[in-house]
C-alpha cells in the first residue's frame, strides 16, 4: 500500500472530479430514469422500472427526434471537421504571421457568449430592414425560419471548426520540415503533399477531433434552443438533448418529468459509448496508440 501512496495521491484530484461530475450524475440519472419522479410526484416518487423507456419507445415524436439528432450531429460534424482541416491547411500554407492572425480572428465566436453570438446570427438573418442578408439579397424573409437546419449547422459549424483548426494546425506543425522537403524533391505538388503525406499523418488528430466533437454535439443544444427553440413547427429541429432538457428541466406545461428526461439522457450516454467504440474500431485505435504518431528521430 505504501508503494502506491504517491501515485494514488496524484490520481486523487482527477478521481474526485470524475466521481463528482461523471460517476455520481450517471448513477443518479440511471436511478432517476427508473422512477416516475416529476414536479407532481417530487416528494414521493415511485419505482416504475423500465416504464419510462417503454413510454419513449411508443412516443410518436421520438423517431423524428432521433432522426433530427443524427442529421444534426452528422452534418455539423462533417462541416466542423472538414472546415477545421481546410482552415488548418490554408493557414499553414500562408506566412505564419498571417496564419496566426486569421486563426485568432476565427476564435472570436468561441470566446463570445453563445447568446451574443446568436444575436449576431439573428441580425444577419432577420427580415428587412433589420436583417443584413434580406437587405443585401433583396429577398425579404426570416431566413432562420425558412432554412432552420442550414442556420443551425452553420452557426454551430463556424464555432466548432475552430477546435479542429487548432488541433490540426499544431499537428501539421509537428510534422518534421524534412518530410515536406522530401515530398517536394520527390515531385509532389502542394495538393499531392497534403493528400499523400499530411492527411495520413493527421489520422490520430482527426480521430480525436471527430470523437470529441461527436460527443459534444450529441449533448449540445444551446444554439438550437436560442435560434429555433426546436421549431419552427412541431419538433422540426428538436434534437435528443434539447428534448431531454425540456422534459426534465423546462417543460412548457409546468409538469417537469425528471424521470422521463433521465431516461432520455441515459439513452444518450449509451449512444455516446457505442459511437466511441465504433470510431476506435474504424480508426484502428490500438495500432494508433501503439506506434509513434509522427516520427521525429
Amino acid at each position: 500500500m505504501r508503494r502506491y501512496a504517491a501515485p494514488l495521491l496524484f490520481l486523487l484530484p482527477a478521481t474526485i472530479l470524475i466521481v463528482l461530475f461523471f460517476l455520481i450524475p450517471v448513477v443518479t440519472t440511471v436511478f432517476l430514469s427508473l422512477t416516475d419522479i416529476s414536479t407532481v410526484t417530487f416528494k414521493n416518487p415511485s419505482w416504475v422500472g423500465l416504464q419510462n423507456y417503454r413510454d419513449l419507445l411508443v412516443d410518436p415524436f421520438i423517431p423524428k427526434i432521433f432522426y433530427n439528432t443524427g442529421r444534426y450531429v452528422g452534418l455539423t460534424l462533417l462541416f466542423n471537421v472538414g472546415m477545421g482541416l481546410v482552415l488548418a491547411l490554408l493557414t499553414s500554407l500562408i506566412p505564419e504571421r498571417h496564419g496566426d492572425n486569421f486563426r485568432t480572428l476565427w476564435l472570436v465566436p468561441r470566446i463570445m457568449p453563445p447568446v451574443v453570438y446568436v444575436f449576431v446570427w439573428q441580425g444577419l438573418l432577420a427580415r428587412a430592414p433589420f436583417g443584413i442578408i434580406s437587405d443585401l439579397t433583396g429577398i425579404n424573409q426570416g431566413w432562420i425560419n425558412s432554412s432552420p437546419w442550414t442556420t443551425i449547422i452553420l452557426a454551430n459549424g463556424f464555432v466548432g471548426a475552430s477546435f479542429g483548426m487548432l488541433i490540426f494546425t499544431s499537428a501539421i506543425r509537428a510534422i518534421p520540415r524534412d518530410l515536406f522537403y522530401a515530398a517536394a524533391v520527390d515531385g509532389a505538388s502542394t495538393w499531392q503533399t497534403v493528400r499523400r503525406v499530411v492527411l495520413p499523418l493527421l489520422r490520430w488528430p482527426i480521430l480525436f477531433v471527430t470523437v470529441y466533437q461527436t460527443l459534444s454535439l450529441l449533448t449540445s443544444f444551446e444554439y438550437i434552443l436560442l435560434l429555433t427553440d426546436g421549431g419552427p413547427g412541431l419538433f422540426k429541429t428538436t434534437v435528443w438533448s434539447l428534448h431531454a432538457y425540456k422534459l426534465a428541466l423546462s417543460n412548457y406545461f409546468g409538469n417537469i418529468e425528471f424521470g422521463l428526461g433521465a431516461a432520455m439522457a441515459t439513452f444518450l450516454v449509451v449512444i455516446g459509448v457505442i459511437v466511441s467504440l465504433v470510431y476506435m474500431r474504424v480508426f484502428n485505435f490500438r495500432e494508433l496508440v501503439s506506434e509513434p504518431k509522427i516520427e521525429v528521430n
Partner: protein
Amino acid sequence: MTGVTVRLEGLVKHFGRVQALKGIDLTLTPGELVAFLGPSGCGKTTTLLLIAGIYKATAGQIFFDDRRIDHLHPRDRDIGMVFQSYALYPHLTMFENIAFPLRLQRVPKAEVKRKVEQTAELLGISEQLLRRPALVSGGQQQRAALARALVKEPRVLLLDEPLSNLDALIRLSARAEIRRLQKELGITSILVTHDQSEALAMADRVAVFSVGEVEQFATPEELYKAPATTFVAGFVGFPPMNLFEGRFNGAFEAKGLKIPLSPGHPGGKGYLGIRPEDIRFDGEIAARVLLVEVLGKDSLLTLEAAGHILKAMSLEGMQVAIGDELLLNFPVEKLHLFDAEGKRIQRQAS
C-alpha cells in the same frame, strides 16, 4: 545514366537581414562527387537547399548543363535528395517510400515494382520492403532514403549529412557504399557534411565553406597540402594545423619565437602554420610537454613553446612523458605562410 555539369553563379541568399550566402561560384564536372564541408551555420546546407529548389536564391543563377534551373519547382529539377533525418514517410512501408517518386509520376504499376525491387536489391534492403521505417534499423532507413533518391534516376544527387545519424561502424561501410554506387551510376553528387574525414574520404573535390563563402574548392590532397586560407588550414586535417600570428622579417617572428624561413619572402604581418605531423624533434625551439594522448602507433603531444600552445605527433619509438623538454624543428619546406588577411602566400619558386 550520365551526370550533368552543375554550375552555381553568384548565389546570394538572405534570410531577413541575415546574409546566409555572400556569393557562391562553383562548377561541378559531370559524375563528380563534391563535398560541401564547413562548421554549422556556414551556409553549406542553404546552398544545397537552393540547388534542390526548397529555397529561392536572393540573387544568382544555377545551371544543370546549360539549362538554367533556379526558377523551377523542385519536382522539375530532376534531383534526388537524402536528408540527415532520412525523412522517410512514417505511414508508408519501405516499399511505398521508395516507390513514392514513381507513383507521383504515374509510372505503371509493374514498372514501379520492378524499379523499386531493383533499387532495393542494389542497396541490400529487399527483405525489409514490407515494413514501416520505424521498425527497421537506422542503417536500413538510410538505405531506403538513398533508394528513394535513386529510384527515379536523377541527374543530380544531393546528400545532406546522410551518415551523421549512423553508428560509427556502419558509417564507415555506408561511406564506401555510397561512393561505390555514385561512381557506378555516374551521378553528379553533392555531399554536405561537417565531418572532414567523410569529406576527404568520399569526395573528388571539396568546397570548404566559412560564413557564407567558399574558402577553397580543391581536391582533398590539395586542401591538405596547400590550404588557401588560415580557416581551411585550421579546419582540415586532424589534428588541425598549428597557426602562429606574427611578423615576417627575413625569418618569422612571433612573441618569443623566431623561425627561420627560406629567403625571398615578403615582409609584414601574417601567419605561419605547420602541421603537427611535420614537426621534427632535432631543432632549436625549446618546448615542454603538457599532455600526451596515445592514438595507437603514435601519440599526440600538446606542447608549450615560449608561451604558445601547439600540437605535434610523436615519432615511432619515441618515449615522451609530461614535463619533458624537447627541441623542435620546423622544416622550412613544410611551413605554410599566410598574409595578414589569412590568405596563403605562394611559395617562391626555388
